[in-house]
């Protein structure tokens, strides 16, 4: 479709009337999602406008890909269609920081860094450290259920959200949850929305519970010769009284495994915690290290090229065996491995190799190991061409038909993110 034609067609005219012509533009090749080229990029300024855009597209049989900071567009299967990118960039305000209540109401397009900056003025924080906070937005983090290294202490992002406002394909704007820490009125639709990859509605606003910014932080590293020893150490820390806010395994080689631990609190207690950590670690020496070890996850995604990055969810006690199996498979195949695993049992793995077939081989072996452990594995990032050969979401349990029914109830016209989610949702 030529641009002139696009701009004269009915959809273009209707949508530009909703958001104003300056907020609708033709899409460029950079706007493509997994090599699927959209027609336009639309940026509504209010939740009501988002809902109107959805309603129009829904009735006109057009599809929408919601976009925040665009940091996670590689997640999921290739969309089966992409007519418009719906950008949340204009919904970027921090609406209310109720610091006395330790809550914040924020629009979905606000970046994590901007939000944290506002919160810090009153010594508070959203106790989550998703990747690329300078670009990642509240809405994107919620839609992908992105969680970082703080999760082991403060819970997943789902545990920090008190409520959301969401625009639905039928043009309604709903709110779920509320602004208070405890609330059991009605169904918890916030949890349904979180991690639904924008396939049910578009999150336009969220309310979070907050935590104080710690007075002091210290990080430590120990270097261990085998995955099994590293895993044992992690389990000993998990079973201790230490109040860590980060616990991570980082490995690029089978014989050099780093274990990172972070403590936060008042300075006197940090020293006390360190002494106890040393006691638990025994022969393994912990030394203080820079705080940037906690960005190891994010570094996996730098210059992805033809790399495959996947997320393996296993039990904490299985990390050692997963790590061991991974290096055993990868070394003979000449595939370079980087593993960053959290003490929660969530492991992210980057595989680099000269050829796609080598990667596929290791990936299949990894998936069968994860299946054996009764965990799950999803591919977060890979070359587009590989997506034709594998389902990035992996093995699904028996709840898929129910999930499809839910999709049908909220988005019967398949307007939102068609085909990207599990089972082709």
């Amino acid at each position, binding site marked *: 479709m030529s641009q002139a034609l696009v701009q004269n067609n009915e959809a273009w005219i209707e949508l530009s009337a909703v958001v104003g012509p300056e907020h609708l533009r033709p899409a460029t090749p950079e706007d493509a999602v997994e090599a699927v080229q959209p027609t336009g990029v639309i940026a509504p300024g209010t939740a009501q406008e988002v809902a109107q855009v959805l309603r129009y597209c829904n009735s006109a049989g057009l599809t929408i890909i919601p976009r925040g900071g665009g940091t996670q567009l590689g997640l999921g299967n290739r969309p089966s269609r992409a007519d418009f990118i719906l950008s949340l960039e204009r919904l970027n305000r921090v609406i209310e920081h109720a610091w006395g209540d330790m809550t914040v109401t924020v629009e979905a397009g606000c970046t994590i860094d901007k939000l944290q900056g506002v919160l810090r003025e009153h010594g508070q924080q959203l106790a989550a450290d998703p990747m690329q906070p300078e670009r990642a937005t509240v809405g994107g983090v919620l839609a992908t259920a992105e969680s970082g290294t703080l999760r082991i202490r403060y819970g997943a992002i789902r545990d920090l959200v008190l409520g959301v406002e969401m625009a639905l394909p039928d043009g309604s704007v709903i709110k779920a949850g509320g602004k208070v820490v405890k*609330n059991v009125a009605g169904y*918890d639709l916030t949890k349904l929305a979180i991690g639904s990859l924008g396939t049910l509605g578009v999150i336009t606003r969220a309310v979070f519970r907050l935590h104080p910014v710690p007075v002091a932080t210290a990080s430590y590293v120990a270097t261990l010769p085998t995955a099994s020893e590293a895993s044992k150490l992690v389990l000993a820390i998990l079973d201790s009284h230490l109040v860590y806010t980060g616990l991570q395994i980082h490995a690029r080689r089978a014989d050099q495994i780093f274990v990172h631990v972070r403590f936060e609190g008042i300075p006197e207690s940090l020293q006390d915690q360190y002494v106890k950590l040393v006691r638990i670690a025994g022969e393994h020496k912990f030394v203080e290290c820079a705080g940037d070890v906690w960005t190891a996850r994010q570094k996996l995604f730098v210059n992805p090229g033809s790399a495959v990055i996947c997320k393996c969810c296993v039990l904490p006690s299985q990390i050692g065996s997963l790590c061991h199996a991974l290096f055993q498979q990868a070394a003979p195949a000449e595939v370079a491995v980087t593993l960053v695993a959290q003490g929660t049992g969530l492991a992210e793995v980057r595989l680099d190799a000269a050829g796609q077939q080598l990667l596929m081989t290791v990936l299949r072996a990894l998936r069968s190991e994860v299946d054996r452990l009764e965990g799950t594995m999803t591919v977060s990032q890979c070359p587009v061409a590989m997506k034709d050969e594998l389902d990035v979401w992996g093995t699904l349990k028996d709840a898929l038909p129910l999930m499809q029914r839910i999709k049908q109830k909220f988005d019967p016209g398949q307007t939102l993110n068609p085909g990207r989610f599990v089972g082709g949702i």
Partner: protein
Amino acid sequence: MNARLVSEFRSIVGDAGLVSGPEQLRTYECDGLTLFRVVPELVLLPATAQEVQAIVKLCHRERIPFVARGSGTGLSGGALPVKGGIVIGVSRMNRILEVDVPNARVVVEPGVTNSAITAAVSPHGYFYAPDPSSQVVCTVAGNVAENSGGAHCFKYGVTTTYILGLEVVVSDGSLLRLGGASLDQPGYDLVGPFVGSEGTFGIVTKITLRVIKKPETTQTLMAAFNSSSEAGAAVSAIIAAGMFPAALEIMDRLALEAAEAAVHPNYPNCQSLLLVELDGSTREVELLMEKVGPICQSCGAWELRLAKSEAERMAVWKGRKAAFAAVGRISPNYLVQDGVIPRTALPRVLGEIDRRSAEKGLRVANVFHAGDGNLHPLVLYDRRIAGQEERAMELAEDILRLCVEAGGSITGEHGIGEEKKQFMPVMFSAADLDAMQRLRSAFDPYDLCNPTKMFPGTDAKLQRPVAYEPHPIEIAGLAQRY
């Protein structure tokens, strides 16, 4: 119910699992909210998930509505039977199936009690965090249905934070596994909305949950104030100082009197008592507790008392958890509500409750989780005095509206159930409620799972909050409500 169907149900669960005598059925006519009563057609007590499936399949075939029931301690009528329906009790499915200490996971059947989980992991130094006051008798399945809270949720969160996986039977009788032992399973988070769905999505047959390590040290401080506003200010000041206590509880004069009469916790004799519990590493707790005292004093505390031993600490909590039931000692009748407000609205809302209770000539006892703004106003009255019950109900309704106007919720722990369903439109728009109904119909397209609860009926006329009435077993002295 016709004899053919009864015998078909009997063939699934056997004689031991079937309750059909009229007197026995009356035991199941209500839950902890005794005002509403419906005698079920039949009560079935299955012993396995397969039996639950077979029962539900039969209900599906015959279009018989069913209500799941744990121990019946709910306070909003969630387990109230539905007219013409059956009750499926999970009390016989009460085994702890797996305790995985290294991964801090426990797998249980639905009828296991809340306290039994902590008992199972306690030798390993772990505990199950959600602690509703009824924890000794209430079941995990009931906790899942109601998304139960407790005094320690400010720091530790409610039930939903701890449930990782569910095996459920939905209304066509199929068995589904949602979530699982490892985190972040692909697909929609269906465990999230299932928790707190009040039995309207299906019946839980197995639960995988997370336990956590007991903190190294726990300290509890009692601070005596001349008013709940002062105590509330202390709560805000403690939080503003960057602390994150495990519990922050306030009890007012009436609640204190009642608790003292019931279990003698030896509280300071004051207008308002604040309990501050800190836990974590010993060094940090000791250092922070040194700061809590002066903060309380700067807000008007005139006595500080730190529980000196574990036994003393337990006595403090026993008094707090008994406060509800104890109010029965100072008033013949009372209404219980559990509205939530943003914490900073506390002084204003409490002032407003005081003003309105004076206006109505009624006393209101306040016991609340101050950290998370969860009020438990107990409206005291005597139904033998003409007009008091009516005024008490009006006042309770006013309080719920105050909570919503302050940006809060009509229920923090007890649920909507039968009791508050007519209040849902006060909090939610028609579109919000419609979205909830879509989810409900995806789980239960046949309207068989607890079908009359949580949503207002077509009759839009608001129903008044309902009075607390003792259950027959309470009157008989066989049980006590906490």
